[in-house]
C-alpha cells in the first residue's frame, strides 16, 4: 500500500483531504525504479478546478503512454494545507507516488489564467525549488510552462527554465527524448537547455536579452547566443483525429467543477471575433473525425462510469458533423442514463430540438453571447450575432416552452460609448417584450433574463492587443450605466443583472500584456503573502499596488495607453501563424466598423494557412 505524504493528523484537519491522496480511478501508477523520466504535471489551482481541465489530462495520458516516463499530478494546496506545509516544512508532493516534487526531472505547469501567477510561486516554494530559474542546480527539476498564458510568458520569464509555446501533442515527446539523450551523454542542465531551445516551440527565456527605450517600451529582444533561434514557432497539432486523447480520464472521488467526461470535438474557431484570444491562437480550425469521436465517447464513458458527457469546442455549432454526433450520443447513451450536456449552441430550430430531448425545458436556459449591446459595436468586435437573429431564436424557444435566457456581454470594448452600454439593457428588454407577446395562457409564467457583463481585457495576439484599458472607476461607472438603464425598462422585473469585479480586470490586464519587469512585482507580492488571487476572498488588490510601488513599476504603463502598431511587443518573438499584418489590418477594420467574414465564408489570409490544414484547405482537396 502507498504511504501518504501527509500524516493522518494533517489530513484529518484540512478541508477535503481527498484533494491530496491520489488513488483515483484511472490515475496511473508505475514502478519508479523502471522509469527514466519523472514528470510532475501541475495546474496551479485547487484540485477541483485543476481536475476539470482537459489539456492536463491529454498531456498526462500522452506522457504515460511511454513506458520510460511516469507523469504524475500536483496541484495547489488549499490555504489551510499551505499553512501546515510551511509550518512543518513538508515538501510539496505528487498525488500518485506521494514523492516530493523536488525529486522529479520535470515540473510542467499549465498556465491558464493570469490570476494564478502567485500560485506558481507557491508551487515552486512549497516544492523547495528555487524561485528563480538561474538559481536552480543540476538536481532541481526543470520547470516548464505551457498553456494560453505562455503566448506572453514574459511576466513569468524569471521563474521558468523553459516554456512550451503551442499545443502539447507535437513536441513534448521529442523534448523528453532530448532530455534522455543529454542525460545518457552526461550533459549538464545548460546543455539540455540549449538542445531544448532548438526544438521548435521551446522558448528558454535565459537565452534572450531584453532592452528598453526611455519611454519604457521594448527596444530589442534578441538571443544571447548564436545557436539559439530568434523566433519561436508556435506548435499546432494538425491531425486532431489520429493523435493523443485520454480514453481513460481520471475519475475524482470528490465533486469537481467539471464532473463529467469531455469530448473535444474540434480545435480553433472560424469566427474571428476580434477580442477573442483563443480564436486567434488556435487557428486554423481543425475538426475531429465524427466516427472517431463516437468511439472516444463510448470508451471514456465505459472506462470512467461517468454519468455525463459534454462536448467542448470554441463554437460547437460550427462543427460540420454536429447533428450526426448528437443524434448518436442521444440514441446510444440516453437509455444508459447518461446526461448529455450541451455546449452553448447557436439557438435555432435544430439546437432547440436537441435541447428539448436532453434537458428539462422548464429548468434549462437559452444562452446568447452578443458581447456588445449595439450592432455598431458588434461590428467593431466582429461578433456576427444580430438582434434579429437573437429575437428570432428566443421567440422560437419561448413558443416551445422556454422562459429563461442568459445574456453575456463585455464592457470596456474599444470605441464603446454610453449608447452601446445602454444597448445592453435595450436588447434585454426587447427579448422580454418578445416573451410577453405570447398570450398569457400559453406561456410559462414570467420570463427570467439574466444579463452578465465582464470587463474586456485586451490579450496578446488579438486585433485588440494595442487597445487601451480604463481605470477601475470607469469600469464600475459603465456597469452602473447598464444597471440604471435596465432599471428603467418596462420589464425590468424580468431582468437580472450581474457584473464582475473591476480590480481583477485591471490586474489581469497588466499581467496579460506585461513584460519581464513584472517578475519582480509578482515575486514581491507573493512574498507578502499573496496566493489564490483568482479567488475573491484571497485577492488583495492593495497588496499588489504596494508591490508595484516597491518595485518602481508603473502599472498604468501596461494598460492606460493605446500602443502604437510600430511598438515592439514583448510577445512579438513568437511566430503564431496568424501574422502581425493581419492583426493590424483587423485593428484598422474594426475601427471602421467593418466586419470580416468567417473562414468558411471567405479566407481573409490571416497567415494560419501556413500550417497547411484544417479549415484553410477544406473543400480544396
Amino acid at each position: 500500500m502507498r504511504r501518504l505524504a501527509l500524516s493522518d493528523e494533517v489530513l484529518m484537519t484540512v478541508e477535503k483531504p481527498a484533494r491530496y491522496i491520489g488513488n483515483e480511478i484511472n490515475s496511473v501508477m508505475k514502478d519508479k525504479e523502471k522509469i527514466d523520466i519523472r514528470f510532475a504535471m501541475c495546474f496551479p489551482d485547487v484540485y477541483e478546478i485543476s481536475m476539470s481541465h482537459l489539456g492536463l489530462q491529454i498531456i498526462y495520458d500522452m506522457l504515460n503512454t511511454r513506458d520510460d516516463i511516469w507523469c504524475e499530478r500536483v496541484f495547489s494546496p488549499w490555504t489551510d494545507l499551505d499553512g501546515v506545509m510551511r509550518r512543518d516544512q513538508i515538501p510539496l508532493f505528487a498525488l500518485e507516488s506521494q514523492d516530493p516534487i523536488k525529486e522529479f526531472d520535470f515540473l510542467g505547469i499549465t498556465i491558464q489564467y493570469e490570476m494564478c501567477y502567485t500560485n506558481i510561486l507557491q508551487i515552486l516554494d512549497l516544492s523547495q525549488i528555487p524561485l528563480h530559474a538561474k538559481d536552480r542546480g543540476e538536481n532541481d527539476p526543470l520547470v516548464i510552462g505551457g498553456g494560453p498564458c505562455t503566448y506572453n510568458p514574459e511576466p513569468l520569464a524569471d521563474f521558468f527554465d523553459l516554456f512550451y509555446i503551442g499545443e502539447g501533442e507535437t513536441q513534448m515527446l521529442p523534448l523528453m527524448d532530448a532530455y534522455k539523450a543529454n542525460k545518457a551523454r552526461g550533459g549538464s542542465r545548460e546543455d539540455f537547455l540549449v538542445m531544448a531551445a532548438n526544438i521548435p516551440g521551446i522558448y528558454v527565456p535565459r537565452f534572450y536579452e531584453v532592452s528598453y527605450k526611455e519611454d519604457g517600451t521594448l527596444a530589442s529582444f534578441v538571443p544571447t547566443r548564436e545557436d539559439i533561434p530568434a523566433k519561436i514557432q508556435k506548435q499546432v497539432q494538425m491531425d486532431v483525429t489520429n493523435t493523443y486523447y485520454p480514453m481513460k480520464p481520471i475519475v475524482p472521488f470528490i465533486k469537481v467543477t467539471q464532473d463529467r467526461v469531455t469530448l473535444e470535438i474540434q480545435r480553433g474557431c472560424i469566427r474571428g471575433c476580434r477580442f477573442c484570444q483563443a480564436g486567434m491562437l488556435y487557428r486554423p480550425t481543425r475538426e475531429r473525425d465524427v466516427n472517431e469521436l463516437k468511439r472516444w465517447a463510448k470508451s471514456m464513458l465505459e472506462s470512467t462510469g461517468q454519468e455525463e458527457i459534454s462536448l467542448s469546442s470554441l463554437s460547437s455549432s460550427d462543427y460540420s458533423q454536429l447533428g450526426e454526433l448528437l443524434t448518436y450520443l442521444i440514441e446510444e447513451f440516453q437509455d444508459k442514463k447518461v446526461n448529455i450536456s450541451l455546449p452553448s449552441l447557436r439557438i435555432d430550430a435544430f439546437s432547440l430540438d436537441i435541447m428539448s430531448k436532453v434537458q428539462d425545458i422548464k429548468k434549462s436556459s437559452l444562452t446568447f453571447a452578443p458581447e456588445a449591446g449595439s450592432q455598431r459595436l458588434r461590428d467593431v468586435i466582429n461578433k456576427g450575432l444580430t438582434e434579429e437573429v437573437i429575437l428570432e431564436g428566443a421567440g422560437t424557444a419561448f413558443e416551445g416552452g422556454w422562459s429563461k435566457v442568459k445574456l453575456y456581454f463585455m464592457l470596456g470594448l474599444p470605441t464603446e460609448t454610453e449608447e452601446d452600454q445602454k444597448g445592453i439593457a435595450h436588447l434585454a428588454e426587447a427579448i422580454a417584450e418578445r416573451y410577453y407577446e405570447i398570450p398569457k395562457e400559453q406561456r410559462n409564467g414570467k420570463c427570467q433574463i439574466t444579463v452578465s457583463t465582464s470587463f474586456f481585457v485586451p490579450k496578446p495576439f488579438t486585433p485588440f492587443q494595442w487597445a487601451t484599458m480604463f481605470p477601475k472607476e470607469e469600469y464600475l461607472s459603465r456597469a452602473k450605466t447598464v444597471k440604471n438603464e435596465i432599471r428603467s425598462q418596462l420589464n425590468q422585473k424580468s431582468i437580472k443583472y450581474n457584473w464582475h469585479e473591476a480590480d481583477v480586470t485591471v490586474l489581469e490586464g497588466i499581467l496579460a500584456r506585461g513584460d519581464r519587469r513584472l517578475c519582480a512585482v509578482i515575486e514581491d507580492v507573493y512574498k507578502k503573502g499573496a496566493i489564490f488571487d483568482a479567488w475573491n476572498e484571497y485577492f488583495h488588490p492593495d497588496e499588489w499596488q504596494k508591490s508595484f510601488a516597491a518595485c518602481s513599476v508603473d502599472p498604468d504603463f501596461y494598460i492606460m495607453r493605446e500602443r502604437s502598431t510600430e511598438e515592439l511587443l514583448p510577445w512579438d518573438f513568437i511566430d503564431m501563424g496568424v501574422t502581425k499584418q493581419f492583426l493590424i489590418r483587423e485593428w484598422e477594420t474594426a475601427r471602421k466598423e467593418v466586419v470580416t467574414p468567417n473562414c468558411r465564408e471567405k479566407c481573409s489570409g490571416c497567415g494560419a494557412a501556413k500550417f497547411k490544414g484544417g479549415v484553410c484547405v477544406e473543400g480544396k482537396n
Partner: protein
Amino acid sequence: MKVRIKFAKTGAMKFIGHLDVMRYFQKAIRRAGLDAAYSEGYSPHMIMSFAAPLGVGLTSQGEYFDLVLNSATTSEDMIQRLNGAMAEGIQVLSLVQVEDGKASKAMSLVAAADYFVTFREGKEPCADWESRIADYYAQERIPIVKKTKRSEMEVDIKPMIQEMRIYNHGVFLRLATGSANNLKPELVMEGFGTFVGQSLEPFAVQTERLETYAEQEGSLIPLADLGEIIG
C-alpha cells in the same frame, strides 16, 4: 430485485466521505456493467441505500448498501466485476439478494456495529490504560456530555454499549447503531479519557468498523446474512 453489497474500506480511502463513497459506487457500478435500475425523471439516479454512514478517518471491514437491479448474473460474477472496477482500498466482500420493499432497507435494519479501536503510538491516555478499560465499562452509568450545535446534554451511554473489552492491544466495541440509537466509538473513547483523568489528544485513536448488524428475534445478525447468494 434488490441486492445487498458488503465492502471493506481501508487505507487512503478512509479520507473519502460518505457522500463521495456513494458517488464512487454509482460510477463503479456503471464501470462494472451491472444492470442497475434507475429512478424516473430528468435526472435519473440509481436506487441505492447505504446502511450506516461511516465517519471520515474510519476504516471498515463491514460496510453495506442495497442496490436495485433490473437483472442479475451470479453473486460471484458480479463481485468479480465490481472488484475489477475498484480503487485500491475498497473491496467488495459479498453480494446477496435480499427481499424487496422498504421494511427490508439496509438503513432501517441496522441495530448495532462492531468496532476495533487502537491508540496511536504515544497517544495512550495512561500507561495502564488496558487494565482501566474494564473499570470504565463496569460503571453503572457512563455519563457523557453530548454537544450539539445548540446545547450540551448529559446522556448515559452505558445502555448503548453492548460489549467493550480489550482485544489484541486495542478495544473491541459493540455499539448501538442506526436511526433509533446511535453511538459513535469516538464518544466512548473520549469518555474513557475523561474517566482516567486525561482528556485524549486530537486523533488519538484509529477506529475500524468490523461488522454491521440487524436485530432479529433478539439476536444480532450481520446484514449480509439476511440475503441469499445468487448461484
